């Protein structure tokens, strides 16, 4: 973390970019190919984040549907009720 008032060094940027790369799913496959360019990595990061946002949205809808089944007597409903019991 650059707490110095001077310029951010390339080294620091590279370190952070590597760290980011290690968090992206596809990067694990490509490790042997070496580091990708920073701009490519940023693009992948953006797609990844967008994908995660979409997943949160979709899963929220699915959870909403599951809530709708809660008032029935199915075993499914019982599981959900037990998860949400205060």
């Amino acid at each position, binding site marked *: 973390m650059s707490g110095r008032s001077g310029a951010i060094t390339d080294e620091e940027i590279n370190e952070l970019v590597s760290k980011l790369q290690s968090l992206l799913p596809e990067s694990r496959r490509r490790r042997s190919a070496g580091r990708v360019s920073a701009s490519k990595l940023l693009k992948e990061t953006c797609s990844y*984040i967008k994908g995660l946002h979409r*997943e949160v949205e979709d899963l*929220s809808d699915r*959870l909403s549907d*599951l809530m709708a089944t809660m008032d029935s007597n199915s075993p499914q409903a019982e*599981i959900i009720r037990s998860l949400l019991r205060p």
Partner: protein
Amino acid sequence: MDSKSSACSSPNPNPTLGPSKLMLAFRFLRALSLVRRTTPASSRTCRGRRIERAAYASMAYTAGASRAWSRAVLRRLHHRARRRAVAPRRLSTTAGNRAEALRRLVPGGGGMDYCTLLEETADYIKCLSMQVELMQGIVDSASSYGP
């Protein structure tokens, strides 16, 4: 969250339930319970969006106030009556416009210097993945007893 530790270690594919995951689960399930009690059964879409907001709120509270992205999420949630989408960015010229697209995706990304942006992004991604994992887990356990 102890996100400052082990900068470059690769993420564990099968993480054990650490304290922050547990806190997240607790917060999120409690929020879900509240949504269920306070949302009329008829408004399915409304409930879906409330659950989504509960997801981001749980994430942000669990990450704590030490992260710029979590503070930005909570600010946005508390002011959501005014705007729905991404908050308008006020990019400072000293920070430059590097990674503009990323700045729009990471909460609070607009006013950060590049270094901070990358750090915040890494933490944001970790927390988002954890939230998605949690929600998927709930859906899976609830669905595995289906017809």
